[in-house]
């Protein structure tokens, strides 16, 4: 999936998405990050041909969108901006309807596939219940089931764990891993960084309509410099020792000293502290979370931008 200069300007003149060049490699689990209102959903709508870009192009599975949508979209499972269903119908009837809308879906296996999809998201017992009676979490699962009605080459999931309890979130994570293991490319937007850290191979960050960063998660992580944290009552002595060894950016708090060890070997630092008679209560190397990195990239805390 590739976009070039993708731009959406709404009628009011507001630029929701500005010159976005996304590259989602086949087989990746791609985390699409950004604060609420940063243009993630608008981008996804353009990827799927729901709205027309003001400028730029989208290529999905090697074919131009929205021109080739009728041949491409059957190979793409999508969940866009939260679950949407006919409340007066059962979960099963909803699944059957959306599958029937795809002319390429086999009608003979439709019920069978619906049953399998419902089982995969743990909704088998609620299949005959009207969606009106579903909780938000159940609707979210049903929306994922729609995407799983067929074997897909690409899944586009907009906030798939929204509204799910921790158990459900875990299940979705496992499901994404499992699908990716079968060779499905997964593109998932989220504002939960834990999701990205745990399952994604690649990530991109949107901020105010622009793509501010795009790389593998491993690269992102490698850039985050680990910090050495020493827990000790001998704060002064520890700081002095570490400083002498070349640890920079030292900071002291009530019972810890922390600093940037750079390329210094950690075991040697520990040995040196012990030799210097620093009483060690704790000695850890901590990587900052992706969250801190993303806050730095987007210039604001998550979930607060407009």
């Amino acid at each position, binding site marked *: 999936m590739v976009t070039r200069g993708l731009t959406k300007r709404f009628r009011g003149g507001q630029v929701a998405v500005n010159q976005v060049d996304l590259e989602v490699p086949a087989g990746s689990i791609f985390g699409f990050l950004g604060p609420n209102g940063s243009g993630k959903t608008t981008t996804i*709508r353009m990827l*799927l*041909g*729901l*709205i*027309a870009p003001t400028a730029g192009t989208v290529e999905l599975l090697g074919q131009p969108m929205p021109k080739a*949508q*009728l*041949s491409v*979209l*059957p*190979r*793409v499972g*999508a969940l*866009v*901006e*939260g679950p*949407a*269903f*006919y*409340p*007066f*119908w059962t979960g099963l*009837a909803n699944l*059957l*309807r*959306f*599958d*029937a*809308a*795809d*002319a*390429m*879906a*086999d*009608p003979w*296996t439709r019920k069978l*596939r619906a049953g*399998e999809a419902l089982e995969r998201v743990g909704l088998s017992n609620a299949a005959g219940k009207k969606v009106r009676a579903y909780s938000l979490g159940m609707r979210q699962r049903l929306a994922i089931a*729609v995407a799983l*009605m*067929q*074997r*897909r*080459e690409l899944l586009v999931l907009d906030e798939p764990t929204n509204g799910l309890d921790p158990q459900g979130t875990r299940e979705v994570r496992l499901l994404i891993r499992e699908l990716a293991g*079968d*060779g499905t490319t997964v593109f998932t937007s989220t504002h939960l960084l834990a999701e990205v850290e745990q399952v994604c191979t690649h990530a991109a960050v949107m901020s105010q309509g622009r793509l501010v960063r795009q790389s593998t998660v491993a690269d992102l992580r490698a850039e985050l410099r680990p910090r050495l944290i020493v827990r000790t009552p001998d704060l002064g002595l520890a700081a002095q020792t570490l400083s002498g060894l070349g640890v920079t950016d030292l900071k002291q708090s009530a019972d810890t000293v922390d600093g940037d060890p750079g390329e210094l070997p950690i075991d040697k630092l520990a040995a040196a502290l012990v030799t210097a008679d620093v009483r060690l209560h704790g000695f850890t190397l901590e990587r900052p979370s992706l969250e801190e990195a993303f806050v730095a990239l987007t210039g604001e805390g998550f979930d607060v931008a407009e």
Partner: protein
Amino acid sequence: MSAEVMEVGGGSSPSTAVARGRHGTALFWSELHLVFGRARTWVLLGVLAVVPVIVGVAIRLSGSEGDAQGFLGQVAGNGFFLIVASLALSLPFFLPTAVTVISGESLAGEASLGTLRNLLTAPAGRSRLLAAKMVALAVFCLAATLTVWLAGLIAGFVLFPVGDVVLLSGSTVSLADGLVRALGIAVLIAASLIGLAAIGLFVSSLTSTPLAAMAATFSAFIVSGILGAIPQIDVIHPWLLMYGWTSFADLLRDPPYWDEIVRNLLMQGAYLAVFYAAAWARLTSRDING
């Protein structure tokens, strides 16, 4: 990829592309299921079915032929005319109301629920979805008039004596012949509603609020009626939606007068073409944000 794709899903690989179109009717059946699988639709049809019953019971209770003119005046003498009278009475209000509700809902309802985006990413194809919606609306129009026909038939036969039918032209035909003509009237009236259904579909493509679409469609219908009642502008009357609506009665002549009937069908066809094209232009260029 194709071998792998076949394994679970079936039907999603390039190798099954030849099967495309073969399952293209599934969406049309699904649309019918959506229209007729809702309690609201059955309430509307139920109201329509009550019309002949109320008319029949009222005439029966009054116990006379009264001063009623036209079809109503003949009901007490021959229950057959309850069918025709009920269809004629439903035409100015009940039938258009029902069509307005269903057509206003069609696209705006999907947009307000958000299901439109699921359908389009399925992908249903915007043109195909619109075609399925219009076909379902046409089927509803027919179901609505057939409901009145059937309810009129049952109520007429239960409440009144029935027999050979004296046509408007004075000749007499068998009851069976009359019932077939009444069925033809039901079909013609359904066709008369197609123009309104197309307007409703178009209005429905403009908004994400079904109620607004219904109100706007009904307003268009009322305005058309008002224009039709102003004699000073009678030059435009022949081009109004309802101008040929009463042409159905010409089927009760021997031989039937086809001129007005055909003209009405052409008019409805023209309304359908214009508003369907407008709905298509709107839906295929619309940003689906809901």
